[in-house]
């Protein structure tokens, strides 16, 4: 009964989306219809919420007559995983996607008093149209409420053990909030094109939403990387896997958008380019959904055999991209403002950022699609390895750091070269630091020393400006946010450079009471014992780690788990997490004579990768709290507002 109600609620949400789209797009100037478009958006959220609640309820009470529940859950599963299993599979995660879409629309309604009424209505109409597409996809190709009647299984197939984890509870909602959040800048861009109103005020409206969506996306990707690190059991944190790339591509586009919006708001230029980025960012969200959900990754053939979901998304993608780009082609470029700027200006350095982001996007897109294209054309199979991505991302990252170091002292329009003295002083200090570290630590290559020096340079120039602005009492939230995000970027790059070159890893054969040395520590196995979990049994290795002189002893207990329901085997690493380094042990396989194959890692600064990324996200959120974005009743000035350079 409850699942049928859920299905009904989802259908109603779809009907309201249709209504909202119709009213929002066809009659944005009629006051009565404006209000009803708004209430239809509220309705979409409410009914999506009910549908989602119904699914969670089906999981909570182990209703295995629902096919999706039977595939994803099991009576032995702890209750919190039963709830999170609701978004552990394709159908349920898409329902979560719809709920999050509804929530963003709701948030937009709540803040809509600062935009002109007809503009709000148009935007909500576009968002409703997109939501209609999502809801139809769920109802027609991926309905989570399908029943298995009368052949109801006695127990469920169990949630994949890799997903029985805290990471899975929080990672998808955050990531989806990012993906779907990019729909708002998209809708704002399309509404602006329809109204022929593209100005600095529009950019100010758009920035809040873009920053929030970008921050969610950043957190989501970071959590995914962290989850892969501790849960896959083998110490890697980024694999250039197509599924990861699918989330990285919209992130790159959104990062470019965050920066070009800043230029547009402050200087009134970069208009057409910004609109294009807003459309691109959301299009890559949809492309990611296509790559991940169509089965095209498994094989082009599997996509051809079961093309239903893939074709649906592909057609939807074609409509969204085709429609918005046609509108763009027809309308963009109107009302061009000619604003000059020199090479030494913030505008130019923002342009550098945008070029780097777009090139990165091209690299990731190529690396992701080339194997698919190759298979479609020749039938042969290829894989593209990590060195391909590194060949581009190492120099691009360095270039970005170098450009970033100049940013704090740059003004809009032009900067006198004489004012750059402090930047060069900081460069000197950073270079000395990099060379010193190179000698002391003897890193693998000059590239690491340069990464250290460049990161230090960014930290120094940003720190110096931050301090001087704070002393003068001129530190608006937007500037603070920018500084935090840039410091986060430097921190993450430093972490990536150091952990990917300075980590030590060894695979060894260990018998009880044998010892092994790893990066200045001594590891001893005291034994391997059997332990019993709620829904698995495991063999647990007990390792004692000490400094070489015998001090600082601690214990790690990696496990090899076998899950009772599906029989899946999983490696659960033992990790001693530290701010400066992690020690990471995983059990391989049992060998003859009571020995075990064991992998030990020492990973310096690996946490900086994620902490840096979180700092970036925090910066994006802090910037939203700048005074100029504060809710204003009648801020909807209909002309260009150029704020003086800050």
């Amino acid at each position, binding site marked *: 009964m409850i699942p049928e109600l859920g299905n009904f609620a989802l259908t109603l949400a779809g009907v309201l989306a249709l209504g909202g789209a119709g009213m929002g797009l066809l009659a944005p100037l009629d006051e009565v219809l404006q209000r009803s478009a708004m209430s239809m958006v509220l309705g979409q959220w409410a009914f999506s919420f009910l549908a989602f609640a119904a699914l969670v309820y089906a999981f909570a009470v182990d209703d295995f007559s629902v096919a999706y529940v039977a595939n*994803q859950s099991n009576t032995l599963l702890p209750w919190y995983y039963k709830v999170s299993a609701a978004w552990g*599979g*394709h159908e349920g*995660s898409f329902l979560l996607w719809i709920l999050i879409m509804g929530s963003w629309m709701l948030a937009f309604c709540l803040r809509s008093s600062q935009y002109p009424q007809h503009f709000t209505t148009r935007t909500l109409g576009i968002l409703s149209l997109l939501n209609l597409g999502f809801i139809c996809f769920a109802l027609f190709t991926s309905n989570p409420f399908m029943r298995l009647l009368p052949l109801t299984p006695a127990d469920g197939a169990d949630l*994949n053990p*890799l*997903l029985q984890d805290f*990471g*899975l509870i929080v*990672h*998808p909602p955050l990531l*989806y909030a990012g993906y779907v959040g990019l729909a708002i800048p998209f809708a704002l861009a399309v509404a602006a094109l329809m109204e022929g109103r593209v100005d600095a005020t529009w950019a100010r409206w758009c920035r809040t939403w873009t920053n929030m969506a970008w921050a969610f996306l950043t957190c989501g990707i970071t959590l*995914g990387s962290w989850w*892969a690190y501790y849960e*896959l059991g*083998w110490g*890697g944190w980024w*694999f250039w*896997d*197509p*599924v*990861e790339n*699918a*989330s990285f591509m919209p992130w790159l586009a959104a990062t470019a958008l965050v920066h070009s919006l800043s230029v547009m708001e402050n200087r009134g230029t970069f208009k057409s380019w910004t609109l294009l980025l807003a459309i691109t960012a959301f299009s890559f969200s949809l492309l990611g959904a296509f790559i*991940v*959900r169509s*089965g095209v990754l*498994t*094989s082009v*053939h*599997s996509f051809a055999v*079961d093309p239903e*979901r893939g074709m649906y998304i592909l057609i939807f993608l074609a409509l969204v991209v085709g429609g918005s780009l046609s509108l763009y082609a027809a309308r963009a470029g109107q009302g061009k403002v000619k604003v000059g700027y020199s090479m030494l200006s913030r505008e130019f350095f923002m342009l550098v950022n945008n070029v780097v982001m777009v*090139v990165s996007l*091209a*690299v990731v897109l*190529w690396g992701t699609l080339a194997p698919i294209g190759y298979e479609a054309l020749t039938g*042969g*199979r*290829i*894989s*593209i*390895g*990590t*060195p*391909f991505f590194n*060949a*581009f991302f190492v120099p691009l990252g360095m270039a970005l750091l170098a450009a970033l170091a100049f940013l704090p002292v740059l003004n809009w329009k032009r900067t006198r070269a004489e004012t750059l003295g402090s930047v060069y002083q900081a460069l000197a200090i950073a270079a000395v630091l990099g060379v010193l570290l190179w000698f002391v630590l003897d890193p693998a290559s000059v590239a690491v020393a340069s990464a250290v020096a460049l990161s230090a340079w960014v930290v120094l120039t940003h720190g110096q400006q931050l301090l001087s602005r704070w002393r003068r009492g001129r530190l608006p939230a937007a500037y603070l946010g920018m500084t935090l995000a840039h410091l986060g970027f430097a921190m993450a790059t430093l972490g990536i450079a150091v952990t990917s070159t300075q980590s030590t890893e060894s*695979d060894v*054969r260990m018998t009880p009471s044998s010892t092994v040395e790893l990066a200045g520590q001594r590891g001893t196995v005291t034994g391997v014992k059997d332990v019993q979990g709620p829904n698995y049994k495991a063999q647990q290795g007990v390792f004692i780690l000490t400094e070489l002189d015998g001090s600082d002893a601690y214990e790690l207990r990696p496990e090899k788990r076998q899950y009772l329901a*599906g029989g899946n*085997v*999983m*490696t659960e690493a033992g990790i001693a997490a530290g701010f400066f380094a992690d020690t990471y042990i995983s059990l*391989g*396989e049992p*060998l*003859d004579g009571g020995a075990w*194959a064991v*992998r030990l890692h020492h990973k310096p600064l690996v946490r900086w990768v994620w902490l840096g990324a979180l700092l970036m996200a925090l910066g994006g959120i802090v910037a939203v709290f700048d005074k100029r974005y504060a809710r204003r009743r009648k801020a909807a000035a209909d002309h260009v507002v150029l704020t003086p350079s800050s």
Partner: protein
Amino acid sequence: MNPKRKQRLYLTVFLLLVAAGVTALLIQISGENMNMFYPPADVVSGKAPVAQTLRAGGMVQDGSVMRSGEDLGVSFILTDHQGAEFSVQYTGILPDLFREGQGILVEGQLSAGGVFYATEVLAKHDENYMPPELMELQGIKPGAKPPSSMPGYPSASPDSRSAPSYPHDS
């Protein structure tokens, strides 16, 4: 040509050059880092190149897995059960789902003597998902529905470089 047009022309030419350069680099570098996949028949017949990084796959022959007594060296034979088989040498930890009779992928180089020196061993990702190359080998029609459908299921492979993935693709 007036100066404004001239400027625009320069900009366009510059952008085109940059785009062409990036594209050339993409093709060049991805070509260098591309690994082809070969089934056992191609490895045996010599169709697979020697001393180049490539991927091969097959079923682990029953009784062929030999572990060294001292270190983590291991050797096994991959077969397609149709007469083509080759032996693989590997040092390190095998994936959780590596078993005799199971389909697996290896990445590494083929020696002139026909022995495959693997740097990575990838097994089926979990009980439901297997790499698409292997599905075709085992004659399973790929994608009779991508298994409930989780293409990039995280492989619990010990080789960090090869382990895909993520829960959100479920």
